[in-house]
């Protein structure tokens, strides 16, 4: 999953980015409202974490412009202001969730998972494709009951494919959602990660779940 963090307080921004990367998110982070808007408009984020008090373009203006442009990326607003009016204004402008600082990082993660599930129309925190089971809370993967150990990047790729299971996911799309802005676009890296993932998930299994559609991308699911 790819997340954007727009927060001007450096310690918080860096900690959030680090924590989210640890959790397998591809993270872009900025402390400027205008830059945040540019990021949000030009990258397909799965979720945006937005502080309201930003230098330059404020968080609420950013949100308004984003929604006015038809962007539906889930936005979780972070703010130090806890007045009801502030929450109402934020939610009315199109924020999907609201957290008051200081917050528990675990709760933030849970809310982000919920936003991602809603985005991909899932209700359960555990994604199931055939005998493959992905627990998005514990970030644990099982195939036919056996635990499959994945690296953070492999997990990120698999989780995105699982959210879009049954659909063809292009290489660009996969790249956009599993790698952040800082990663050098390199198809070799993606190929390597996919082949690792395929080996861990499908090797020795009768039914293959990861399929390559030549010239189009990848599909996670049972062979149609």
């Amino acid at each position, binding site marked *: 999953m790819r997340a954007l963090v727009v927060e*001007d*307080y450096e*310690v*918080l921004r860096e*900690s*959030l980015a*680090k*924590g989210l990367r*640890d959790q397998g998110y591809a993270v872009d982070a900025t402390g400027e*409202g205008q830059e945040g808007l540019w990021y949000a408009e030009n990258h397909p984020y799965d979720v945006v974490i937005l*502080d309201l*008090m*930003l*230098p*330059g373009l*404020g*968080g609420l203006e950013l949100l308004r412009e984003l929604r006015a442009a038809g962007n539906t990326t889930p936005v979780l607003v*972070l703010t*130090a*202001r*806890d*007045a009801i009016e502030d929450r109402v204004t934020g939610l009315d402008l199109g924020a999907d969730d609201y957290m*008051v*600082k*200081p*917050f*528990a*990082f*675990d709760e933030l993660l849970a809310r982000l998972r919920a936003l991602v599930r809603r985005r991909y129309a899932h209700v359960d925190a555990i994604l199931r494709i055939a005998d493959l089971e992905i627990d998005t809370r514990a970030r644990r993967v099982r195939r036919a009951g056996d635990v499959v150990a994945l690296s953070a990047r492999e997990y990120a790729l698999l989780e995105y494919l699982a959210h879009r299971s049954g659909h063809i996911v292009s290489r660009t799309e996969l790249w956009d959602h599993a790698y952040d802005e800082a990663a050098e676009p390199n198809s070799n890296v993606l190929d390597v990660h996919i082949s690792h993932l395929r080996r861990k998930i499908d090797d020795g299994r009768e039914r293959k779940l990861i399929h390559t559609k030549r010239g189009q991308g990848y599909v996670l699911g049972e062979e149609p």
Partner: protein
Amino acid sequence: MTTYSLRRRLVLVMTGVMMTIFIVVGVFLYAGVRDAAWQQHDDGLRARARAFSALVEHSDDGYEIEHPPELRDSFVEVVLPDGHVDVWRRGGKPHFAALVARPVSIQPPQLIDVTLPDGRPGRAVVIRFVPRDEIGGAEPAALILAEDIEDVARSLRWLATLFIVVGIAALAAITTLVWWIVGRTLRPLDKLAQSLDTIDEKRLATRIALDEQPLELHAPIRRLNELLDRLETSFARERQFTADVSHELRTPLAGLRTLLEVTALSERTTADYRAALADAHRIVLQLGTLVENLLVLARLDAGHVAIHSTDVDLHELVDECWQPNAEIAASRALSFRNLASTTLSLDREKLRIVLANLLANAAEYTDRGGWIEVASTDSAITITDSGPPLPDEHKIFDRLWRGDAARSGIGVHCGIGLSLARSLCTAMSLSLTAENCGDGSVRFTCMRTRTPSARGTL
């Protein structure tokens, strides 16, 4: 609290005034009517006495009275010139000694109050007359007519009762009417109270409309609305201040919490832990400064500030205050020059807070790559930075004001710092001003407002 009631007071005063008027008018009216009644009665008495006197005749046989008149409640005594006294009354001629003292020494005509022979109060008239004379030589005689006055007295009593009863009834009616009218007249006050009832700290935007209020209430209502204006402003300021303080406290707390939680989430390298600890330490220091600022501000607001002046080595103090900013300044490529060299007699602790806030402000807002310079003379301390210029040189000392509203400063720059610095300067009899120097640089000047005679002044 007194139970002073406008309505009760008005009614009491009105009733009192009306009662006095009634009593005075009633007494005069009664006296007039009584005098007139007595006048009429006395005239009648006199006329009847004359009529009786016409019945006395002087003839050869001496004085005699023709046809004794028909008497009802009257008593008539005739003192004839020959000294004979004749008394008439119904049913006989008893002694009538009580009527007047004899010999008749009164100068008639005269009216006197008497007690009638039967004990009732009466009134008598004494006249002198010369009896009708057929033979000549008649001497003057006197006639006393006494009559019962019960009729007149009863009429007057009735009149007095009537006056009192009507007066009391009118007074009661007037009191009731005044009570009601005053109540109606004062109704706008009730309405005003009702409108005021609806105002609490959440609805301070309410104002009392003047249109429906009587002219007399316009002035107090205007004052009331002005008071509400001031209350609303100060409540809003207070709310804004609380929100801002909470924002300034929550932001570093959120940073600290997330930093610690994320660091603890998985195994880290020693370098990672060191970096996290350094960050946490920095945040705690900033939070400490913020809390200190807030406490000093609260004490200043409450007026509990004592000034303890000692000799302060300014150069050393400036270095101490700059220390916490050195790291940020280095990361922003700012150069710092401490040219202060004076020793001044001032409150070291308060001056430290002032300088710390001014330097933190300069380190935060000076453009990357700029410079900051502190200098001092015997009369002033100046902190100059390379800019950018202040958007508003006067507003920056307002509590909560920030050049950039969305700017999330941490701690010292949350719009409290400069306001606090100025309040502290005022407490130390210093002035603190800011100016844009034209070349883009900004200078804060801290100067003595009164020059004491002591040596080593600022």
